[in-house]
């Protein structure tokens, strides 16, 4: 009786197994994308306006901070292309990247208040989830990423 029940439930067990593995893989992919955004923001805020720093001693973002953040976000994503459902360049180009060189500032998109200069990346990253697709769910899962960094 137990053997018959197991065999009868086998399709369900396999679906559960596949779903569990896909969820795990999605978690890794999402973490990797968040790391990409975090690192891009860090790279951008680490580059200071040297003239401002020398004359006033204040930390201020470089004028190209937003461009650098977007460029490095694309570079980081480029190394995970097998996980992405869209080209890395497209994802980075569509990301909302903003630099707030003068503090205090209020982020118009998130409503957050920054007490020091900041760079923010807000992006929707489409990730491949082929097993979900095979199980009649969506083959692409979009993960929203928010990364904010300030120099110190």
């Amino acid at each position: 009786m137990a053997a018959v029940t197991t065999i009868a439930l086998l399709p369900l067990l396999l679906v559960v197994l596949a779903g569990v593995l896909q969820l795990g893989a999605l978690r890794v992919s999402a973490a990797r994308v968040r790391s990409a955004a975090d690192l891009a923001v860090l790279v951008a805020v680490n580059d200071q306006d040297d003239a401002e720093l020398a004359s006033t001693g204040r930390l201020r973002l470089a004028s190209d901070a937003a461009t650098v953040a977007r460029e490095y976000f694309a570079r980081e994503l480029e190394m995970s292309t097998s996980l992405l459902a869209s080209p890395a360049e497209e994802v980075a180009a569509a990301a909302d990247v903003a630099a707030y060189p003068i503090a205090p500032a209020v982020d118009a998109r998130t409503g957050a208040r920054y007490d020091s200069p900041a760079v923010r990346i807000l992006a929707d990253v489409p990730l491949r989830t082929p097993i979900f697709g095979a199980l009649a769910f969506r083959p692409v899962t979009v993960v929203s990423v928010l990364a904010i960094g300030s120099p110190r």
Partner: protein
Amino acid sequence: MIAILVPILFAILEFGSALERWLAQDAATVQAARLAGEVGGDLPEVHQLLADQLRGSGIDPDRVVVEVVPARVGWREPVRVSVTSEHPVAIPFLFSVTLPLRSSAISRGEVNR
């Protein structure tokens, strides 16, 4: 029945372990990339940090391949750290396989030589 349920259980445990290890390796690689940008490239402290982080996550650093490109990075130049390891997965009654786990991160040189 055992021949069906045991492989399913082991598949969840083994692949879960592989994914956990991959996450840890990714996080360690990001930290190493940051340090490589800060100190200027492929220096012993980068390998030391990576080894400490990997060891803390239960990964043997001696069985991991690390690549830092370029070895000497200048100001505002990109530096890439890649880490590759192998994780054995054994599912009773079905198969044994070795999964390659690859992690990479890019940072930017902060040393003005």
